[in-house]
């Protein structure tokens, strides 16, 4: 284990190193499993793994050799089967994108990508619709009080997406209650969906 760490530390401290790792284990760096790996490591900074984080990750995976590591990473998507784990991972995914010191929100483009990575397997249809909305919403200025001009979203909004997908059936939007504590962006999304259905 020590040997592996020492070897790897040189390689994995930087984004290039991570790319090398990805090549090694034959997993694309945009694959959700790399993100899960980062989560397991509790990596703080995107693109970088510290020695401690790396160590933590390997321990979690129970991998002390290269082949073991490769296998472990390949099987990482199964880690998310447990709902509490998934929620934690989901929030982490957002956090991971905050690169600046006081940054609280993530830009729409990244959000869309992230949605695709993290939620598409479980909610393919919903994710497609939401991504469409977010991209279209940038150009839509509706007459209602709230402008659909979202350039970046915060953690609260991000979390509300998963909750929304889980709790609300897209075929049964009439039962959606906007007087509940759903975020405004979700309220607007539902309105947009309803309009879309009519046409």
């Amino acid at each position, binding site marked *: 284990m020590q040997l592996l760490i020492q070897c790897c530390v040189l390689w994995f401290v930087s984004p290039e190193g991570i790319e090398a790792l990805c090549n090694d284990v034959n997993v694309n760096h945009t694959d959700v499993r790399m993100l899960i790996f980062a989560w397991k490591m509790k990596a703080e900074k995107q693109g970088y793994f510290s020695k401690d984080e790396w160590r933590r990750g390997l321990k979690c995976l129970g991998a002390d050799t290269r082949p073991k590591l490769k296998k472990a990473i390949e099987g990482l998507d199964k880690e998310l089967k447990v709902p509490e784990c998934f929620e934690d991972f989901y929030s982490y995914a957002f956090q991971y994108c905050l690169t600046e010191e006081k940054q609280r929100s993530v830009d729409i483009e990244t959000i869309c990508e992230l949605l695709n990575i993290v939620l598409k397997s479980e909610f393919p249809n919903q994710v497609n619709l939401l991504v469409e909305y977010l991209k279209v919403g940038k150009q839509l200025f509706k007459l209602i009080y*709230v402008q659909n001009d979202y350039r970046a979203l915060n953690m*609260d909004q991000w*979390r509300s997406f998963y*909750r929304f997908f889980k709790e609300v059936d897209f075929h049964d939007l009439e039962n959606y209650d906007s*007087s*509940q*504590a759903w975020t*405004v962006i979700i*309220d607007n999304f539902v309105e947009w969906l309803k309009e879309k259905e009519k046409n």
Partner: protein
Amino acid sequence: MERKTIDLEQCWDYMQKGITKLMKILRERHDEFMLRELEERWITHKVMVRWLSRFFHYLDQYFIAGRYLPPLNAVGLTCFRHLVYMEVRDNARKAVITRIDKEREGEQIDRSLLKNVVDIFVEMDQYEEDFEVQMLEDTANYYKSKATNWIEVESCPDYMLKAEDCLRRERERVTHYLHFSTEQKLVEKVQHELLVTHANQLLDGVRALLRDDKVEDLSRMYRLYQKIPKGLDPVANVFKQHVTAEGTALVQQAEEASSLVRKFIELHDKYMTYVNDCFINHTLFHKALKEAFEVFCNKNAAATFCDNILKKGGSDEAIEETLDKVVKLLAYISDKDLYAEFYRKKLARRLLFDRSANEDHEKCILTKLKQQCGGQFTSKMEGMVMDLTLARDNQMKFEEYLRDNTHGIDLTVTVLTTGFWPSYKSSDLNLPVEMLKCVEVFKEFYETKTKHRKLTWIHSLGTCHIIGKFEPKTIELVVSTYQAAALLLFNSAHKLSYSEIMMQLNLTHEDVILSKEPNTTTISPNDTFEFNYKFTDKMRRIKIPLPPVDERKKVIEDVDKDRRYAIDAAIVRIMKSRKVLGHQQLVLECVQQLGCMFKPDIKAIKKRIEDLITRDYLERDKENPNTFNYLA
């Protein structure tokens, strides 16, 4: 002992025979005759039983009671019941009901007869089952057919008169010969057939009554429907619709603001009388009136109206009364803060251009507004009025100063406290030399009075008297400071182009105001202006007006911004004291707290909550996403 037993049996026999004979007689008689016979026999029977009880009292009390056998009077009753009543009851009932219907049609009937027969039912303990049920059904049918007929034939007021009459009669009927327990059920049936079934058509009639101001009929309508559960709701609704329609019609006639508000007040007074008189102050109707007015009360109109009153002046009492009413109308306006802004702007104009007729009136209305809407509403405006009083004092001191220092200037300055007054754009107008001097002098003076204060000159509000030496005659022009500055340029040049003027005055395109120059009425950058020597007017002094500026948009923007802060403050306040609160509860309390100033939009509140989450004032609870926690 034995002889008594035999006697009892014999008596029993006699009784049976008597009753069988009675039955025969009853079977042969019909209707009223039958009833009379029944009545007589029943009375006789009761007497007999009583006597028997008396005769055998000793036995009754000591022998029978001990054996747990029923006493004689009970037996008597049972006898009658089995042998007579059971046979006769259907016919008796039918006969009674027929009589009742006849009475309803106007015939005279023997009420005591009916009373006694009904009593039989009561004593037989079968009143409800054997009599009342059928009677009620018959009543329902009777009135159903009557109602169907009347609703076609009679007008609404007449129908209601009839209905009221019927109800009165039925009540009377109960007191005379029915059991008192029937009253409630009977009245309900009648009401149902007459008033509930045809409610819709009657409501149409209500509309007509409101239109034609038929106060008495409306009172009757109220009386009738008040007794029916939820009966008044549709009536109140029609009332509300009517008032709303009238109010909206007034608005659409596009009246001038002051007469519109006057009409609103009249409308309000008229229908308030209705609520008080016809509808006996019932809360439903108060509510209906209130909601109707909320729909069409025009906010801007109200502020302009006050403006006009206060500008023109008038007798103290009349003004006070009118102001009172307007302030009452304010209760119907949900966006009070918007009104406050408009009012403030207009008040500023009035105070600054000295167009207010009477300072006392201004103070009076502010007191009323304060009473109605709270101190927060009026604090800035009170500050404004105070500023003006101070400014007058100040001006006197300034004039003293001028005299003492012989500057040869005639200048009046009003110093305003920034917080109270609406914000005005101040621009860097290049003042002509003459004016610059004035500004300097005042600055000196002011510094002798108070240090540490910054003076910002708002030239857009200033007025200037210029003496124009025209060929025909000299005329004094009263213009705004900007206009004056422009005109003074012509002291040094005869002709100037628009862009030159702009440059010289250091104004942007927005600042330059269209003034009624003698030469042209529209301006383009290459136009030149010339001083018209030939200009004249029959007046010695002309006031050149400024073109009106539409402030509405700006006011609305300002108010929106203020509202956002207000919502933020309310949310933080609520969360600070509650620490943990559910979403719906938070929204509710927010709306309540802000209600005295404006009605907040739910979506806006949601947005502010989200914003506060981002700023770490609150957080969404991890377990329950519908709840928020306060973050200290």
